[in-house]
């Protein structure tokens, strides 16, 4: 038994009493706090290396974001252009205004149709007359040979497939002579966007993997540089989780900062494009609305990057510490 008054012995009794679950939890939380702060200090202690790692990861994550932004807006552009390219329905010759109005009402009730404009034969004739070189030729006609034309404006967001189906349905109507569907270019654009979306996904996966490897390698070098400290901690009875904790936080910091950088770069791209896009929008009477990245994505990118950083650090530290044990 320890002698009376021994300070070590007195402390021992208190220590035994203090080993409750609550105190362990408090100590665990304290070590998390310490690890988070210590890893941040380590990053700050070598600013150039840390900045380079964050910059490489940030650029790697910004690329798919920029691609996503571009694709989303090409889609928007396609929608805007699609709105100006109405489906033109040419009625059989001899159909009168009442029949044209009836068909316009029928077609206007279809969900994919936003608006139907009836163009009378006289309006068609007037348009032709305004075109250079036609006015003389029209004077030789005894009567107006042009039919009623209905211009169908598809609703925004209507897919190319739905517009194609609309054209097919209208073409089958007995009062309709011809349907002019300008949807071919839309289908090609949609196909291209499909390829682009898949490419963006592959690019995002590859660049995320690259970011993960960057964090992993940085943490690996960090662990290699602190092998002596790790050895001492293990000899003192530190668990793998205890030793790993500061390195996991380092991974989280790298990921978080690079995610923030990637988001800032994406916002910068939006700002750089804002002026030419506004000009493009004006050219389409303001119908072209270019969107930025949604707010949820701006929040999700840094968080996802932090998880990515943690994962990279976790994989490498587990492997490195197993080797050290």
């Amino acid at each position, binding site marked *: 038994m320890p002698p009376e008054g021994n300070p070590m012995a*007195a402390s021992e009794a208190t220590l035994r009493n203090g080993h409750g679950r609550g105190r362990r939890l408090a100590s665990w939380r*304290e070590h998390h706090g310490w690890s988070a702060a210590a890893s941040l200090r380590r990053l700050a202690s070598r600013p150039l290396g840390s900045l380079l790692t964050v910059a490489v990861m940030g650029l790697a994550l910004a690329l798919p974001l920029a691609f996503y932004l571009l694709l989303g807006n090409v889609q928007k552009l396609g929608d805007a252009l699609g709105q100006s390219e109405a489906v033109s329905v040419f009625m059989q010759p001899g159909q009168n205004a009442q029949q044209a109005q009836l068909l316009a009402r029928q077609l206007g009730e279809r969900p994919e149709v936003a608006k139907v404009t009836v163009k009378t034969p006289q309006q068609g004739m007037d348009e032709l007359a305004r075109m250079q070189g036609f006015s003389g030729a029209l004077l030789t006609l005894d009567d107006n040979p042009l039919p009623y034309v209905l211009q169908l404006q598809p609703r925004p967001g209507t897919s190319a497939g739905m517009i194609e189906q609309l054209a097919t349905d209208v073409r089958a109507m007995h009062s309709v002579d011809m349907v002019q569907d300008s949807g071919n270019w839309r289908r090609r654009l949609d196909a291209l966007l499909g390829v682009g979306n898949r490419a963006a996904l592959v690019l995002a996966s590859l660049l995320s993997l690259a970011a993960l490897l960057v964090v992993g390698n940085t943490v690996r070098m960090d662990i290699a540089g602190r092998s002596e400290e790790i050895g001492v901690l293990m000899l*003192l*009875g530190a668990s793998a989780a205890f030793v790993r904790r500061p390195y996991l936080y380092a991974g989280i910091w790298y990921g978080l900062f690079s995610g923030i950088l990637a988001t800032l770069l994406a916002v910068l791209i939006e700002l750089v494009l804002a002026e030419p896009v506004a000009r493009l929008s004006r050219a389409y009477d303001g119908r072209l609305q270019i969107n930025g990245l949604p707010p949820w994505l701006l929040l999700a990118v840094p968080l996802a990057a932090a998880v990515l950083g943690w994962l990279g650090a976790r994989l490498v530290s587990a492997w490195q510490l197993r080797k050290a044990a």
Partner: protein
Amino acid sequence: MIQFDQVSKRYEGGHEALSQLSFEVPTGEMAFVTGHSGAGKSTLLKLLGLIERPSHGVIALDGRDLGKVRRGGIPKWRRQIGMVFQDHRLLMERTVFANVELPLVICGTARAERARRVRAALEKVGLLECERQLPATLSTGEQQRVGIARAIVARPSLLIADEPTGNLDPQLALEIMGLFDEFKQIGTTVLIASHDLPLIKRMKRRVIVLDHGRLVADLSAQEVL
């Protein structure tokens, strides 16, 4: 109580560091393990710290077979023993206080309790006034005393020391040994590997002598005298 029963250790490559080693050290006893370089002293301590595993035989501490401690249980095992190294193995970026505090942080001891225990340990080794200093600002002897404070701060049941006075002058070495002797008095089993025979003789404690991994003598304190 430490029990070695027919313990052998053969390293990869065939070198046999320990051969058929059997001895016991009762709880609270302080014993020296000595022998020339390569006799197996460090290997013996490594086996106790589960840094190495025996090739044959059984090692037990207070009846617990070390062979049954799984890989995942090694950290917990090491928390029960204190280790002192010839090269101190202090973390030079951390203060003396933080170094001594480490085993308690690892054990999950509350902050206030840690502060109390660290100061008690530093007071014990006479370095309380150095708690805010970095180890590099201390002399070799002081660094070794910090290492000892770190080894005893969690009140281990076993304290093992590998050449703890290897770099110290004779007077300082005697002081350090005196510290170990005090821990023995509070119930800690102390096992010290040393080849400093004059110092061992002055301490008048049990001596286990190894030669080429074999036990060649096991001298009681009286026999040493």
